[in-house]
């Protein structure tokens, strides 16, 4: 079901945000940190399909929006990577998860203290590169010449809109050097374990029930296997 929660904003203040939750007060509670930007749309359905399967397996899960995501009233261009990390800390206080699952660049926001999983983690540089490239290709098609270097300079100084995502200068600069933090408690779920190609690669958002089954099974077996 959908609930609202209070997400902190950079520089103080808060924003009411939506969270999708499957909460029956069960023992295992999974915080889900989704893919970011362009990949967020492509991975949304897969992410929620995994949560539905975990619910049927007896695992609670929580997918909170942070400021600037989805229906948020907070403008994306005002958000920072640090602010989102603070948002995840607040979400942990709110939903009291026992484990975390990150998808793709969501791994950049992985909290230190929770065990769990990272699906095909990727860095901020890679996330930016695909979006910068989309912009240079679109510009070329439109007969304008935009170079990667000029766009990067603009991103760092003033912020930039890439593939429709309005990134502030702080966000852009932070993404350029952000890599998923090392954490031995969080196991990687490589795409090769799920069968089929990564859904974030798809030109159009898509789903694959078999991939969702595989991912939910990996998590459910690890969580519930120890309870038997």
């Amino acid at each position: 079901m959908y609930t609202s929660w209070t997400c902190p904003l950079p520089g103080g203040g808060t924003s009411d945000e939506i969270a999708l939750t499957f909460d029956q007060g069960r023992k295992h509670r999974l915080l889900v940190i989704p893919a970011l930007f362009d990949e967020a749309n492509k991975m949304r359905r897969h992410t929620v399909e995994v949560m539905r399967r975990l619910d049927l397996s007896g695992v609670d899960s929580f997918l909170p929006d942070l400021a600037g995501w989805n229906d948020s009233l907070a403008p994306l261009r005002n958000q920072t990577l640090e602010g989102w990390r603070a948002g995840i800390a607040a979400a942990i206080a709110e939903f009291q998860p026992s484990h975390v699952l990150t998808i793709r660049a969501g791994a950049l926001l992985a909290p230190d203290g929770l065990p769990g999983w990272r699906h095909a983690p990727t860095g901020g540089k890679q996330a930016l590169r695909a979006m910068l490239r989309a912009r240079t290709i679109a510009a070329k098609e439109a007969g304008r010449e935009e170079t990667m270097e000029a766009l990067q300079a603009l991103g760092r100084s003033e912020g930039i809109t890439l593939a429709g995502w309005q990134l502030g200068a702080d966000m852009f600069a932070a993404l350029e050097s952000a890599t998923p933090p090392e954490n031995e408690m969080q196991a990687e779920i490589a795409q090769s374990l799920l069968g089929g190609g990564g859904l974030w690669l798809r030109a159009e958002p898509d789903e694959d029930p078999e991939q969702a089954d595989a991912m939910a099974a990996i998590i459910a077996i690890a969580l519930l296997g120890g309870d038997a």
Partner: protein
Amino acid sequence: MSGLAPSRGEIDTTLRAILCDVLGLDPDDVAEFDGDTGLFGHLPELDSMAVAGLLTEMEDRLDILIEDDDVDGEMLETYGGLLAFAEAKVVEG
């Protein structure tokens, strides 16, 4: 994997697999692609974001680096153009 560069056949196979993943097409349909099969401008799914994803995936799986200046309409217009580009990049190393 040995340290040798992939053969032409391997590049072809890899490129078709990437197109399957990006376009969500059945491998049997992509196997039918020939040198003249139209890509960018012909397949509605292949917009600029999809092309960006395609190029990034080619870099990863073929172990090549694609510069901005390399990307032009010709290389993306047909499957044959894209394959020739990939082969040239692999040779370049």
